[in-house]
């Protein structure tokens, strides 16, 4: 029993560190990536040791100096604010996002001393629904944070945010139904294992091959859920100052920012799990590589597991970078365009995708 508890604790810790580190790393990728896109140098100043070091320490600036600055700043609570809800707002935004990682598998089984450890924090047979349920709760952070500060900008941002998140949740959920139909399960680990198969012995049977439209719908709706450009109307800094977190400062504002970045990682992790073979490395089984054509390469189990986890992290990182690329490439939507895209484009497309997938599955037996 103690061994089980210890294993569960270590698994949770690994996943939490993975999620948090990816989130913080994304901050740097965002700064540096935006600088590259806009032809600036960007995020390159960190006057550590009086500038005597020959190389620049831009990454130190973003990863260490910035958080220290944020968390030691004065926490301003505006007059007329609801103190309790003002305090809980950032937590309600970040907590549901971080707990979704519990259902995401980050590897196959690891065998230590005859004990099989499933590399997934919570083995839920309704994994996808759990993730959708939790990400649905993150809207409260936006709504309450905006309302509690007693500011017009914040309230407008909160109302925009809640309308946007609810609209796109529907498209997001329906976009995933196609993949659920293909794999016939709601268990994320089972979906990950199913993607280890190959089509005609050559092409890895990843979700994107069966569900390209489903992936597109999920990704667009997912980017809208993160409330970033081109869907950043809840924040809308040119009209609402900073939207729902206008009246937050210091560590609370940093927490709101972190929840957005953590959401990018969640969307990427979920897209990886459902559409890009989760932790699968093509042709890699538990005992080593089995290339098409009969060539096999046996590998020790630990090496296989390390490669699987690395593959998962790499895929998530690539999708995160893609989202940052989108954020710095596209202009912001107008609000009516945003609602049209969600309700009149994505929703009918998602419904058609579900219908066609179901018909094909029934016909194919």
């Amino acid at each position: 029993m103690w061994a089980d508890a210890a294993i569960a604790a270590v698994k949770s810790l690994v996943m939490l560190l993975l999620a948090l580190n990816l989130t913080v790393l994304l901050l740097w990728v965002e700064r540096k990536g935006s600088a590259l896109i806009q032809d600036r140098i960007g995020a390159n100043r960190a006057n550590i040791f009086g500038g005597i070091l020959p190389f620049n320490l831009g990454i130190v600036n973003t990863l260490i100096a910035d958080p220290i600055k944020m968390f030691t700043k004065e926490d301003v609570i505006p007059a007329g604010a609801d103190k309790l809800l003002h305090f809980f707002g950032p937590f309600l935004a970040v907590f549901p996002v971080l707990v979704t990682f519990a259902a995401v598998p980050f590897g196959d089984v690891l065998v230590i001393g005859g004990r099989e450890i499933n590399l997934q924090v919570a083995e839920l047979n309704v994994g996808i629904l759990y993730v959708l349920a939790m990400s649905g709760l993150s809207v409260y952070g936006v709504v309450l944070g905006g309302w509690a500060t007693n500011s017009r900008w914040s309230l407008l941002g909160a109302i925009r945010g809640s309308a946007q998140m609810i609209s796109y949740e529907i498209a997001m959920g329906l976009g995933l139904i196609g993949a659920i139909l293909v794999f016939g399960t709601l268990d994320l680990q089972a979906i990950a294992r199913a993607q280890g198969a190959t089509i005609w012995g050559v092409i890895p049977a990843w979700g994107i091959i069966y569900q390209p439209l489903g992936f597109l719908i999920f990704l667009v709706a997912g980017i809208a859920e993160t409330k970033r450009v081109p869907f950043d109307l809840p924040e809308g800094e040119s009209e609402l100052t900073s939207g729902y977190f206008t009246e937050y400062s210091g560590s609370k504002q940093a927490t709101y920012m972190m929840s957005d970045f953590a959401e990018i990682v969640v969307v990427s992790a979920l897209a990886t799990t459902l559409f890009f073979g989760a932790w699968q490395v093509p042709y890699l089984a538990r005992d080593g590589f089995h290339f098409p054509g009969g060539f096999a390469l046996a590998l020790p189990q630990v090496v296989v597991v390390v490669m699987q986890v690395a593959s998962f992290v790499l895929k998530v990182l690539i999708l995160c970078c893609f989202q940052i690329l989108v954020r710095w490439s596209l202009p912001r939507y107008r609000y009516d365009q945003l609602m049209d895209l969600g309700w009149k484009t994505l929703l009918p497309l998602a419904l058609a995708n579900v219908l066609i997938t179901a018909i094909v599955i029934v016909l194919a037996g």
Partner: protein
Amino acid sequence: MGSVTFFLLATALVVSALTVVVHPNPVKSAMALVATLFLLAVEFVFLGAHMIAALQVIVYAGAIMVLFLFVIMLLNLSDEEAEARRRGRALFRIGAWIGGGVLAAELAALFLRVPFPAPAAPPAGYGGAESVATALFVDYALPFELTSILLLIAVIGTVVLAQRRAS
């Protein structure tokens, strides 16, 4: 172990449900209702009914309650207004206290007299995806479809009413 977690959860559940009723601030009252629905979902998890728990959170806590909050914020109800509306209803208050008191006494008497047998274990697959789907799409397929038509009519009705107001 099981009963300890149950009673801890049940206490939290009752407290948050009471907060919904007694809290003067409508936003906080709505948030307490969200907490109640969420704790109810946790209760379903302890029963092994993962599917029902997930649906509970997605449908009630994640969607319906957000719309509740949305409307409360748009109307911008404040404590004072609600307080003013409540004043001058002393008679209602006394009646409510008496009714509630009688109900509480009856419940207490019931708890003392009737023995509570240990609950039977839930059937295999209770509240899982398969059993919920079988109930919805096989056993009660017709009522389920009729309900969706009813909801569709309600949606169309809302649109028609909203359009009439605008023109």
